Structures are given as C-alpha cells and as structure tokens.
C-alpha cells in the first residue's frame, strides 16, 4: 500500500510534466532567426564570414543528431557565401535547399541561373 503511494507520488509529477510538455519541433533552428534579425537591425554586429561559420557549425550539430534544419536555411547560407565571393559554395547550398525542399525548385533554379550568368 505504502509502495503504491510512493509510486503515485513519483509518477504524478511525470504525468503532469508529460501533459505540459509540447510535441517536438519539426526543425532545429540554430541561429537562423537571430541572424536575420541582426542582418537588418544590427548589420555591424558580425561579418558574413562569422555568420557562415556559426550556421555551418550549427548545421553539423543538427546533422549529427539526425535532425533537420528549417526551410530557407541552406538558401540563406548561399546568400552569405555569395556575399563573400564564394560562388561555388553559394551554388552548392542552393542545390541542397532544392534537394531537401523541392517546393523551392522554381526560385532556386532562377537564382542558380542568375549566379552562373
């Protein structure tokens, strides 16, 4: 009797926490949103090279845990690579965005053509 009481005391908070906790997110966001915010509101905060390094680092972490980065992440990386003159990487990231999210095909193809011109 006492045992089951203890069990109930232990289980009750678990149940309550279980109810309160939300379903897992579809994507791992890393610094994506903050970087966009800074790009417009605090552009001097970090140079594009630093932003790339942070996004690539986060991407490796996300990949090693078998999760996904959100829509637009690779395309945004492409944008940053292009800014720093790294055209090959810029093209590669657009291809990656297109491969993961075929919904982006029309726009990605347009950007790829634009860069290659």
């Amino acid at each position, binding site marked *: 009797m006492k045992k089951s009481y203890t069990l109930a005391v232990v289980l009750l908070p678990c149940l309550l926490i279980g109810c309160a906790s*939300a*379903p897992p*997110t*579809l*994507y791992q*966001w890393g610094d*994506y*949103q*903050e970087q*966009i*915010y800074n*790009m*417009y*509101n605090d552009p001097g905060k970090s140079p594009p090279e630093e932003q790339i390094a942070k996004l690539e680092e986060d991407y490796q972490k996300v990949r090693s845990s078998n999760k996904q980065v*959100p*829509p*637009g*992440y690779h*395309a*945004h990386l*492409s*944008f940053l690579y292009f800014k720093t003159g790294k055209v090959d990487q810029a093209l590669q990231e657009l291809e990656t*965005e297109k491969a993961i*999210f075929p*919904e*982006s*095909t*029309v*726009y990605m193809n*347009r*950007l790829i053509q634009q860069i290659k011109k």
Partner: protein
Amino acid sequence: MRNYLKPLFLMMLVLILAGCATTQKSYDYAAFKRSNPKSILVLPPLNNSPDVKASYTFLSVATYPLAESGYYVFPVALVDQSFKENGLMNPSEIHQVSLKKLDEIFGADAVLYIAVEKFGSSYNIISSESRVTASAKLLDVKTGDVLWEGNATASDAENESNSQGGLVGLLVKAIVKQIMSNFGTDPSLRVSSVTSARLLSANKNGILFGPRSPQYGKY
C-alpha cells in the same frame, strides 16, 4: 403565477443556449482546403507603426510558426534581396507586385501579406510595456482567393495564463516557450515572436497544418 413563469423561464433558457451557440462560430476553411498550399512566400511586412524596425523585426520571426506548422517557407532575407535587385526597395512597393509575377519568380503556392499595426514600447509612471500587433492575409497565388486572414497581439505585460487551450494550442505554447528562452535582449523582438506564433501557427481560427506536419489533415 406559476403559469406565467414557466414560458418565461423556457424563453430565457432558449436565449441562453442560443447565446452559447453563437460563440462557437468557426472559420470557413473551404478555400484553404481547396487550394491546399504546400509553400508560402512571406513578403516583407507593411509597417503601420512609427518604429522603423517593425517590418524586418517581424519578418525575422515570421518563418518559424509557418514552417513548424508544416509549410515550406521561402528564405525571407534572400527573397527581400531579390526584390531590391529589381528596384523594389520597401514593403509597400513589394505588396503591389502582381500575383502572376510572384508566381513566375518564386513558384510559391500561396503569398502571405503581413501588416504590423502596433510595435514597441509605451511607458507610464509605474511600468513599461512592449506590445506588437499584426494582421495577415494568405492568398492563393494562382486564383487570388483569400485562403485565410487574421490578427494577433502580444505584450510583455500580459498574464501568462492567458493562452490558447486544446491540442493545437500546444504548438503555440511550444513556440512561445522556445522563444522566451532564446531571445533575451530586445523586448520588441521577443514580443514580436509571440505575436508571430499566435498569428501564424496552425491553431483554432488560424492557418491549417501544412503537408510537412504530422498533424496535416487532422484539424
């Protein structure tokens, strides 16, 4: 005496029940379901507030709830850059671009038009409040049909228990929780992300879940 009261009582009962029933009016999703969009192009928001930071602060947090609700969301900064390269320098010009042109350039299924109505801090003697209010309209890019429209507000002075209930409300809660732990510095950014989560997450009277969500088609 009793005979008088009975019909009166019945009439009141009917009125009370009818009163309850009218509050349950729910959003008409017929056009949304017919269109069944997979991808959403978010245009830089119009700014109807006096704060110049409003548009792009809101834009930076608009992707999260839409993507987590199951949609492909076009890369917002790159999209903005594409407009600028074509001479469209501000949101009000961008909002004038025809759907046909947007379809041709981006190939999006739906376009989201956001307007930030209130943004930032107001001060009074004992406390300061940061409030962000925004409205949004989702259009089918091919037909121009309005698929959904709504508005939301958030404030850092509000009571925490004032949140949406039910199963779909969990997504909003999760987003808000994540946001609160992430954005520590700028109160208007933090409040914007709560407004964005309320406005743009699949929820009661909100958008429906998209194809990339495990909840797609259930609500």
